[in-house]
């Protein structure tokens, strides 16, 4: 029991020190900033590729129904590969650092975005599509002006899931030579309990990032015209 209380006290001390690590004096804000930048870079590059690959694939599988099953199954299979194994497969091909991290995280993001894009488009009321076609809209106009805007809330929900898992998994990239807030965590771990403030600082940073992005996307979702409850 006293051990547990001691752990709890240590946790709060580490948490406090973790926050202090962000401020000049006791902490090293310039390092935090560097790793935060690395973390954001991994997240943005990953999301860029994930969206650029997944949204068109999601659209494709609503047009060519026979591709739906194989593509969703492949993305689901990639999603189940353990992260250490994923890096282990990638490193022999692309080396260590930023590149394998972005590739691995992109592969993990595919499923959520592809599936939500397809579900979102398939969920658009058939009557709306029919009236669009009946008025003489071309397929490209129907896709861009009707289907994608109406599927956007569902697609954004998929992106939200992907971005949060990317932010949390990006910490792991540090283990394989990429710079992210994970650097602080791994440094803290290798210090063998003497630098728990670093572990806390990394964890707090990654958590805050996830919360902020989640909030930002939910704001975008709510600002969509017509769909929003006004």
């Amino acid at each position, binding site marked *: 029991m006293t051990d547990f209380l001691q752990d709890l006290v240590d946790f709060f001390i580490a948490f406090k020190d973790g926050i202090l690590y962000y401020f000049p004096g006791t902490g090293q804000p310039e390092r935090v900033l560097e790793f935060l930048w690395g973390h954001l870079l991994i997240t943005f590059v990953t999301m860029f590729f994930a969206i650029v690959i997944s949204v068109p694939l999601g659209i494709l599988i609503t047009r060519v129904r026979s591709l739906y099953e194989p593509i969703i199954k492949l993305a689901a299979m990639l999603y189940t590969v353990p992260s250490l194994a994923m890096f282990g497969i990638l490193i022999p091909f692309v080396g260590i650092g930023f590149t394998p991290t972005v590739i691995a995280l992109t592969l993990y993001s595919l499923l959520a975005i592809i599936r939500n894009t397809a579900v979102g488009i398939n969920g658009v009321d058939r*009557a709306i599509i029919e009236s*669009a076609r009946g008025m003489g809209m071309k397929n490209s106009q129907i896709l861009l002006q009707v289907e994608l805007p109406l599927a956007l809330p569902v697609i954004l929900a998929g992106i939200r899931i992907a971005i949060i898992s990317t932010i949390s998994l990006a910490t792991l990239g540090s283990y394989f030579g990429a710079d992210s807030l994970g650097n602080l965590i791994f440094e803290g771990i290798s210090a063998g309990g003497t630098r728990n403030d670093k572990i806390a600082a990394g964890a707090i940073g990654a958590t805050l990032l996830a919360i902020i992005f989640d909030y930002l996307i939910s704001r975008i979702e709510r600002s969509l015209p017509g769909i929003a409850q006004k």
Partner: protein
Amino acid sequence: MIHFNNITKTYPGATKPSVDNLTMSVPEGETCVVIGPSGCGKTTTMKMVNRLIEPTEGEIYVTGRNILKQDPVELRRNIGYVIQQIGLFPHFTIRDNIAVVPKMLGWKKSRIDRRVDELLEIVGLEPTHFRNSYPRKLSGGQRQRVGVARALAADPPVMLMDEPFGAIDPITRDRLQNEFLRLQKPMKKTIMFVTHDIDEAIKMGTLVCILQVGGVLQQLDTPSNILSSPANSFVADFVGSDRGLKKLTLVRVNEVMKTDFPVGRHDESTNEILRRMKESDLDSLFITDEIGKLAGYVTLEAIQGQPQKKMSQMLQGIIATTEAEATMKDAFSQMLSYGIRYLPVVDERSKLVGMVTSDDAQRLVEQTNKVLMST
């Protein structure tokens, strides 16, 4: 205007065609209501006109052109399309919903804005109030008004309407039907209108096209002829055994009302009134005031042997009146529900202009039945 030439549609995997060797024409300015039991291919027939469904065999001509040789996108922009589920774009304002086709046709913004306001006025929605709203804020009836406005946006000569008022409550539906009839009168669009409601078909159509399951044409004729001379027993059954009553929908009160009948005035003496009733062998008489406004009625029973009483003391109130433009069905239904045999017809200033009797209605129904029995 719309011409089907030996059209057959067999869906992939189906053994029987949904529309079988259909040849029919809808002349310019006519509203052709296509009706039949479910599975008769009425929606399939309509959707082949804007190529949402492609026929298996045959040709369709719209304004003289073979549509199967036309670009479907081009074709559809010249055909107004209204569907039961309306299908407004929820993320577009009412203005942008109506502007879809004009925008694709490359109209200038100012022209689109003017057209949108004009259309909103036409369908009875206040432009300043509705222009920038989103569809979710509108009631079902208002949405379908926007649906009709959207279909009319680029003033297409041809309109396709797939059960447009089917999902709207009966009272609003009736109002929208009347408004659409009023709109269509000067517009003279060529319309193909699908419904499963025979009353709606008779009311909205200048032509009614009855299809049997499998898309076999049974009869294409005016509503009046469909009711009075069904081509076969299928049509007769489909129209219903109350087709005589339905025929009353087609007759306006002013076509049958009596205008020349004895009337009393409220300042006449009782003896004078009594004499007139006996002369014409009437048991009641409508009484008007000095400017011809309907004041009430008197019965023989009430005034007999009361020479000293004043007219105003014996006057009885009018229970129901009708208007010259109402249908005989409405008039007859009023007479039935109030249990009266004479219904006064008044104008908008409640002046007595005529009278219809339950005998008039019965005679109309009997005429229809006689024709039916002889065929």
